[in-house]
Each structure stands twice: as C-alpha cells, then as structure tokens.
C-alpha cells in the first residue's frame, strides 16, 4: 500500500506507526512494574487500602532504608556480585569454546554428544538435585560459592551452548577455511575469527548468564548456610512469612535487587546497536 508513495514517506509512516505501537505496548507492559514501585512506597496501612491508590501520599521512602537495613543487604549484594561475576565469566568463555566445537568442527561422535548435551535439559532438575548435592558434599564445598560458580566453567550450561552454536552456524564457513590457509590454529580461529564476529550473540550470552545468576534462588538456597554468604534473592524471600508478607518491604527490596540488572540491560542495548555496525564485516 505504501508502494505508491515515495519510499521516504513510507519509511517515515512505518516508523511513526512502530513508535505508536511501542508506546502503547511499553505502557501495558509497565503496569505491573509500576504497581511494584507504588507498593514499595506505601505504608503498611496503605497497602491494604481498597481501592488501591496508585500514587501513595505521602510516599514512604523509608521503606527502602528499612529493607536495606533490617537484613544485612550490603553483604547480600556483595555476595551476589561475586557469584554472578565469577559464574558469568566462566560461562561465556567455556560455552563459546564448546559451542564452536559443536558448530564448526567435525569429529567422530559429535552429533551423538550434541544430542546428549541437549538432552540434559530435558530432565527436571528437581530429581537430580539430591545426587548433585551429594557430590558437592563429598568435595566438602557446601556453604561455599563453588557449587554456584564452578559448574559454569565446565561448558556453561546447555542453554548457552545451544544459543551460541545456533549463532555460529550462521557464520559463513569460508572464513574458517581462509584463516586455516593463513596458518591459524583451530583455537586461533575461535579466538580471532569467530568471537569478533559473534558480538551480538556474546552480549546476549553475557546478559542471560548475568541475569540467570543474579536472580538464582534455588542454588544459593540449598548450597549456602551462613547468612554472611546469602544472596539478595534469599534475602528478598525473608520478608515473606507464613503469617503474612511484609509486602512494602518485599517490593522495595525487589526494586533494589533489579537496579543493577536494569542498568546492565540498558548498557547491553547499546552493545546491540553497535553490533549492527560490526556485522558489516560479514559476507
């Protein structure tokens, strides 16, 4: 339908339409989040008010301070950062290496191993939890960060490997051949050819890995005992009680919890946008 108009106008119309749809969508998707913010700023009494007020007056900013101080949250944040950082690095490096092996190197038994690896995602973690826990007990590493970080260095999880493999499959293979002729070693190809071309994918993986570890609850819950080693995700749930949740504190703590991830996501956006320029190398 835009064919009759000039391409310029058509593009502009398309962008205007996209903008309008995005505004509406963003508003819709933000509603639950806005309620979280609103609840975090209410007093105990306001939380129970019906109909709920959207803008609590006066705003109870002290909730953030209370959520921060009623439990040792600075410690929790420090632990979460340490675990997330260690695990993310391991996951990205090892997963990209393994994914390269699965995507671009042919060796006997590769496909069988690939399906085996994928199949590890199909068994619900609930039934392997106890045997895995026993292994860490034998290693005497319960109540350390090791069970939460070390596994990332061994392939970094089926999801990440699968994701990177899918990306690597889309990169033309002639590049490898050319590099091979230039005398690159297979590891050199991974390092100097593949990784620079996979920037959007790597940013994605860093992002997911970070978010996955940042918000992980079950792992820290079962492996960490001492409160000095707790993560934020455990601290959050301590505001939940069988005799009633301290809703406003839980919400305030949740907001504190997601600030780093929102910031990271915002930055990752820029990397994506820059990624457009990078893919110019292709073809």
């Amino acid at each position, binding site marked *: 339908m835009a064919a009759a108009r000039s391409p310029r106008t058509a593009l502009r119309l398309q962008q205007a339409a996209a903008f309008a749809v995005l505004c509406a969508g963003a508003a819709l998707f933000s509603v639950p989040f806005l309620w979280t913010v609103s609840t975090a700023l209410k007093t105990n009494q306001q939380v129970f008010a019906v109909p709920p007020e959207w803008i609590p007056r006066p705003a109870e900013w002290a909730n953030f301070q209370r959520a921060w101080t009623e439990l040792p949250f600075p410690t929790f944040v420090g632990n979460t950062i340490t675990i997330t950082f260690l695990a993310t*690095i*391991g996951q990205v490096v090892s997963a990209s290496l393994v994914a390269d092996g699965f995507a671009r190197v042919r060796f006997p038994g590769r496909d069988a191993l690939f399906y085996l690896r994928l199949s590890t995602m199909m068994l619900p973690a609930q039934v392997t939890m*106890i045997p895995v826990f026993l292994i860490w007990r034998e290693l005497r590493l319960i109540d350390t960060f090791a069970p939460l970080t070390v596994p990332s260095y061994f392939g970094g999880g089926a999801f990440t490997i699968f994701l990177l493999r899918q990306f690597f499959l889309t990169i033309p293979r002639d590049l490898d051949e050319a590099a091979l002729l230039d005398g690159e070693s297979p590891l050199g190809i991974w390092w100097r050819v593949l990784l620079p071309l996979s*920037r959007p994918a790597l940013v994605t993986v860093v992002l997911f890995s970070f978010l996955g570890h940042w918000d992980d609850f079950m792992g820290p819950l*079962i492996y960490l005992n001492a409160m000095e080693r707790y993560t934020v995700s455990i601290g959050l749930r301590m505001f939940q009680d069988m005799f009633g949740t301290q809703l406003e504190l839980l919400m305030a703590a949740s907001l504190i919890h997601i600030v780093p991830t929102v910031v990271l996501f915002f930055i990752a956006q820029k990397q994506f946008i820059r990624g457009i320029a990078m893919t110019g190398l292709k073809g």
Partner: protein
Amino acid sequence: MKRLTRRRLLGAGLAAGLPWCTGGCGVQRGEAGGDRRVTLRYMAWGNPEQLAVERQIAAEFEKRHPEIHIHLFMVPGSAYQDKLQLMLASRTAPDVVRADHYYFPALVRKKYFMPLDRFVAREPTGFLDDFIPLCLEEGTWDRKLYGLNVLFGSVIIYYNQDLFAAAGLRDPYELNRAGKWDWPTFVQAAQALTKHEASGRPLQFGTSTVTFPMFGSVIWNHGGDFLNRELTRFTMAGDADSERGLQEYADLRWRYRCAPTPADTALSAFSFESGKVAMHWGWAGESPRFRRNITNFRWDIVPTPSGEIGNATVVKGNQLVIHTETEHPNEAWEFVKFMTGPVAEMLLCGRLRRAIPTRRSVQNDPEYLRADQPPFHTDVFLESIRRGRTLPIDYRYQEWSQVFTSALEPLFNVQESDAKTALADASQRVNRILSGEEGF
C-alpha cells in the same frame, strides 16, 4: 563501561577461573581459628523480626554457656522444607533444627533425629513435668521423645472490638466466660456483623474462614473426626456428624453469607487488618503482625466456639530436634533445653507473643500473664491450650491433606457441591493414599 573485548574476557576468565580449577576455594570457611568454643549449628525459618528474637535468645544462651557458640542459619520460610530435607538426606543437617510439625512425623521415622530420653534421664527428676502433655505428645514417636515443642500455638479467633460494639453485640470474650460462646452464637454474631451494599456488593464480613486443618475444631465439636485413631482410614464420609460440621462451615460462605469467598479475600481486600472482617480465625503466631499493622481499631482474642459435642480447639507446635549426625550431642541438648526453657519462652511468648508457653511455670508467671498491648486476653491463649487437641498428622499427611483439600474446593470455593458429595469424593482417594497404593 569498557567494551567487551576478547582479551579482557579471557584475562578476567583466567584470573577468576584458575583458582577454582586448581582446587583452591576462594571462600573463607566457618569461624576463625583460635576460637576454642564449640560451634553449634542451629537452623530455623523466619522473617527479620523472628531473626532478631532468635539472635537475642542465642546471645542469652552464649552468656550462660561461654564454651558454646551458636551459628544461626535463618532460612526463608517458603523454602525451608526443601532445604531441610536435602540436608537431612545428605547428612549435612545442622546440629539443632526446628522442624514443622506438619513434617515431623514423616522425618522422625527416618531416624534423622536423636531420641532425647537419655538426656532427659540425666536431668533432675520431674524435668518433663513442667511441660504441658500436649507438647510432649507431638514430639513423641514410637514411645520415645524426639523433639521439644517451640512456637507452640492454637487456632483462636481475633475479633474487632469496635465492630462488635458498633453492632451492639455482646463481647465474645464475655460470652465465652459465661459459657455461651457456641456455634449458633458465633454464626449469629457473624451474620449480624456482615454488611452488603444495596447492589449486593459486600462491605463487611462477620468472619473469615480457614482451610483444613485449621477448621478441625468445627468437625470435632459437631461430633465428627477426620481419620480413625490409628490414622489408617478416612472416617468423614458417611458420618452424619462430620458431614453436618463441614456443611455448617461451608454454609458460612454460601448460605449465611457472612464469610468472604476466596475471590473476596485475595490480596487482603477483606482482611482482618483492613477492619472489614469482624472475626478472624488464625494461629496465635499472627498476633505480632496484627500489632504491627492495626492502628485504627481495638481488637482482642477469644477461643474458637464450642459445639454440641465438645469444646476442642486446634493446637499445633513445631519441634526442636537434634540431628543424629551431630558431633556435639551434649551441647545440642543444652541448647534445646534453653530454647524450650523459661528464659527463651518468656522472650518468644511473653515479649513477642508469637507463641504459647509449653511450660506450666511460664504459663503461671505473672510476667507472662500481664499484657501491655493487645491481645490483652492472655488467658484465652491458655484456655485454648487447655481445650486443645492435636491434629491427625502422620507421615503421609502432606499427600492426603492435599488431596482432601482439593476435594473440598468444589464445596468451599465454587459452591458446586455439598458436604456429603465432597466427602464421598475425598474418601476414595484419601483411603487409597492411606493404604499405600499411590507409588513410592
């Protein structure tokens, strides 16, 4: 932010990863050396408020036992059971553990906990006499004592005194003292306290309702019961008394229309705190929350109503147990004794009013009986324990109670069934579970 380059990535990865790969462990373990004290690990669940009390109790204990250090593991209540079971199965559980009575019978039979009888034998004679028998009953299995009760409580009714006064109704506490707080009186009060808009939209409800097992007393006081004495057979179906009790309870919602439906209660729209529910059935442990949240009306407590057949109330505690694998059984016993002793009970029951004392000496202590903030009727706590009856909780309780609860949903939640039909439905499934036919 610096750009993500490969070199940075690899550098950071190696720097971070190498220590792990070479077997080094970056996290400092446990307590510093040089400390000669025995470290006793103790695990419980709770919110920040509970954490503060547990710390206080631990500090009091350490003051009296300088040779022991209490290492407290405080776990969010919603995930406590998962963690505890994993620790017990892997023999990594702490020395002393608080176990919810809903799970205690299932855990104790796996020999995870140490029998306490040999410790009790070393105490002065009559040591157990100070504990009220109901508490010891819960902690006993196979005729041996395995746990002492903590956070002991009963189901009571919290009531809004202002709403009662405004409706010109007699105070239920007074009625109870006069022996007139029975089921019909309760229903009448609940109906009188319910208000609807002309459009039928509810404004205020007379009472809240609770799920199994908290409504146990209604069934018992109508003459019914859930399981047989041996806890091997479901006895409600076909039993006229049980059916009537259950129907009465469901009628609060659908016939008397004096209790909110699940839709009404979601999100605390009709909660006791909101002042729109005149009577709230709840555990004794809910009182700290009400003290924190309620500022604009007067409230207090009364026992659950009696029936034609009896005046039982529901009681339940949690057990403090010693893990079989502990290296410090004697120190663990000292701690269990302290946690269930007068000092700790006075803190938990007297100060925080989170639970009801398990020791007669504390129950009769004027310091416990005196209250300077609501609920003022401390004697109601004690009366509800005197009338108390323990719940039919056995090692299969989790499974059959869940099946039972969902079989009652058509009756309670959507009004698509009557008590007779719902119980007939429940009967078959519950009995199959009790006979062990549902897999391993």
